[in-house]
């Protein structure tokens, strides 16, 4: 403890340490008090996979999807809006906004030249968006059997250096 004039002043490092320890302690205690405690280490890749499996979907990681780009019968489908698609997108991707699933999805997909033989890789913006999973689920229901989701989306694609096209 340092003394300044006549008043005791707690050392700054001690204040910082107390704040840190209190915060950590409270988080541990409150997490234990939850009806379903959140795990301290989350396997996000497995989480995405489980989510997709629940929907009956296959998933693919960006680096694996990269090896499929340009192969015959492989079509990348962007589930975002036309405005988002007009910005950056996977090179050669086709835009089938997720909203299309509320209309005649079969006709919308076929108007893009998609066939039931195609291996369709659906993506959206990033891990937080569900549009790709929802659209992929709808495409499967509409009779397209070979649908795969890239949950990491365009952000994941960018991270692995996948070719892009479109505006900034």
């Amino acid at each position, binding site marked *: 403890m340092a003394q*300044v*004039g006549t*008043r005791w*002043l*707690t050392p*700054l490092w*001690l*204040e*910082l340490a*107390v*704040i*840190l320890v*209190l*915060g*950590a302690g*409270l*988080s541990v205690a*409150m*997490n234990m008090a939850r009806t379903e405690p*959140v*795990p*301290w*280490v*989350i*396997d*996000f*890749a497995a989480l995405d996979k489980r989510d997709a499996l629940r929907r009956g979907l296959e998933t693919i990681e960006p680096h694996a999807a990269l090896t499929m780009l340009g192969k015959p019968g492989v079509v990348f489908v962007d589930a975002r809006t036309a405005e988002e698609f007009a910005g*950056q997108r996977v090179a050669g991707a086709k835009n089938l906004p997720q909203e299309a699933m509320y209309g005649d999805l079969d006709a919308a997909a076929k108007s893009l030249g998609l066939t039931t033989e195609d291996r369709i890789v659906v993506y959206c*913006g*990033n*891990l*937080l968006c569900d549009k790709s999973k929802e659209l992929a689920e709808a495409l499967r229901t509409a009779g397209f059997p070979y649908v795969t989701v890239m949950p990491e989306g*365009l*952000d994941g694609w*960018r*991270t692995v250096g996948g070719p892009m096209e479109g505006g900034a």
Partner: protein
Amino acid sequence: MRTLGILARLALGIIFLAAAWDKIVDPMAFAKIMRNYQILPDMAVAGVALVLPWIEVVVGMCLLTGCMARGAALSACLMMAVFLSAMAWAQHKGIATQCGCFTTKADDSISMVTFIRDGSIMALALLVAVDVFVRARRA
């Protein structure tokens, strides 16, 4: 001047408490937002997502009560610097993600508005820090 300093400290405390609420209610959503920043390794994301909001709570309470005000003000400055840096990094990398600042809902994407808002909070935190440190030195 003293009143202004106290008001600024109270306002900052309330801001920190408000910012912590949604993250405590839905830590999984906050963890997903943090992961989307692509800064931390996956294995560290959940731990930080669980602890960070409670540190915000402690900092907020300290600022409100004036207890350990220097540590709280310095922590607030450091946290705001980290948050702003993370947002700038995401912008630089072209990562379109949510801010995760005050809400875990999908309506808080990183934008100029979030930069101005967090920049203002950073300025307020610096003001409070200067005030409490000067006051402590004079005491």
